[in-house]
């Protein structure tokens, strides 16, 4: 069983009498107004890992990673036999540890990603902020266009997002390059 719910301010345990009342009550420690919503997981014992059973009958399928353990699943990515210990369930799929690792490294398992670069924001910043100082746009405008072209198909945010920032970055950077070309032509003329 887990520890009691505590007050975010003073860490005093909050009495069960105030759980799920749908209204604000006082913390017994600091008298701060608090509201607590709890769910059955609070009272559930922690789940135990499946260690896997030993192979008893000769010829029985065994785990690819632990040959002495009985296979209970197959990896849905590479097809390897897996024991209870090696079977990793992710988003309803059964995967082996090496597929999970490679999927995480290659960014194929969105569920395991903890960080993403936002190249569209980066391109837009590169195309707009240097305009304030004018001269850096000589370098940053082509850089912004490079970022747009290079990362147009790169994975962006995992939450819904349009490509409008890329479009704007391309538009502003193109304008700056056109302005520089016009200036050069004007000076030559």
């Amino acid at each position, binding site marked *: *069983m*887990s*520890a*009691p*719910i*505590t*007050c*975010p*301010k003073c*860490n*005093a*345990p*909050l*009495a*069960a*009498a*105030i*759980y*799920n009342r749908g*209204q*604000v*009550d*006082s*913390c*017994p*420690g600091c008298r701060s*107004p*608090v*509201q*607590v*919503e*709890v*769910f*059955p*997981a*609070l*009272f559930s014992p922690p789940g135990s890992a499946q260690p896997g059973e030993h192979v008893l009958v000769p010829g029985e399928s065994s785990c690819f990673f632990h040959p002495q353990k009985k296979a209970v699943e197959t990896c849905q*990515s590479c097809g390897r036999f897996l024991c209870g210990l090696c079977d990793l369930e992710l*988003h309803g799929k059964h995967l082996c540890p090496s597929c999970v690792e*490679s999927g995480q490294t290659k*960014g*194929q*398992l*969105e*569920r395991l*990603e*903890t*960080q*993403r*670069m*936002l*190249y569209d*924001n*980066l391109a837009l*910043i590169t195309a707009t902020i240097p305009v304030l100082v004018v001269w850096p746009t000589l370098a940053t405008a082509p850089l912004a266009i490079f970022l747009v072209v290079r990362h147009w198909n790169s*994975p962006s*945010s*995992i*939450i*819904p997002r349009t490509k409008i920032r890329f479009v704007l970055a391309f538009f502003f950077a193109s304008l700056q390059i056109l302005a520089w070309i016009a200036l050069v032509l004007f000076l030559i003329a």
Partner: protein
Amino acid sequence: MKPESEKYKKLPGRGTRRGRFPITFQYSRLWLGSDHLLMVTSTSWSEVYRRFSFRDIQGFVVRQTAGRRNWNILFGIWAALFALPAIRVEHDTVSNVLWGLAIIPFLALLVNSFRGPTCECQIVTAVQKQFLPSLNRMSVARRVFARVKPHMEQAQGTLTPEEIAARADAWVQAPEAATAMAIREDQDRTGRGLSHYAGQAHLLLFTLLLIESVRAGMDFYFRSTLVTLLAMMTGAAIVIMVIIALVKQQDSAMPGSLRRWTWATFLFVLLLAANGFVHYISLIIQNPDLAHSDAAILQVYVQMAPDESPWMMTSLLLAIFGSGILGGVGLLMVRKFREKRKTPPPLISLDQTPPVSHA
């Protein structure tokens, strides 16, 4: 393996939390997935994701804070500062400009009041407690709970008040509860783990301020090049220490009062530095022939008597009392923090009388 993608739905609320560096902020927002909540923390060019599976969420704790009242006071003062002169000014254009400047904070005050009480919300799982910066208003938190609750019930089932009371009874005798709670306390509002900083830099900073206070007092009776050089060294050490203290207090378990006191010290140090700079420039203007030599300017400064210059007198009094108060109170606060850090928080019995309702 083909890349998978999840369809997320936006949940109400948007908040900020402290960034990795002082004065920087990150934006945070909650999204609803098929079987988990997603907290997205964004900087300008990257996003950090934290997922909370519906099966693992044990609860939400919302604490009502005084943010709305504090902001209303601030907006009220701001509006009054422009509105009062606007009433008295006879010139139409100036009066209109002042009314225009007063109406902005007044509108902000109205919006702030309308949005309801502010709060901080914590999500609790078996292994962590995490603040959710986007749930910063009670109304937003309640709307999010209403959206999430059906998913939670689908994943975990429901709890009746009788079940909660029966199951919570076991806690009163459970000794492991305290240990588990201590583990959970290892998270702070930034979502990163708390550092084990014990306040050494603050201790040194406030000690230096007390030394500076005594040193400034000595200026009335004993002025020499050596004492002035010592003052400059102390000043430089205070500047360095206040920056170190501000960096160290990030992600530490230090109380908010001590953090604010350190920021106040930083502002005081800035004030003293600006005053010293203006004094130095004025000495150069008064003695243009000595401008090329810092040593000569220093000699002129040492020969000045505090009672002959009102500016110097004010500066010294400011240094004596400001440094003394900041240093003395700061030392007491650091001492209290260090003592509290050594003793674990007391466990309060769960079978206390039911708390008073605020609703």
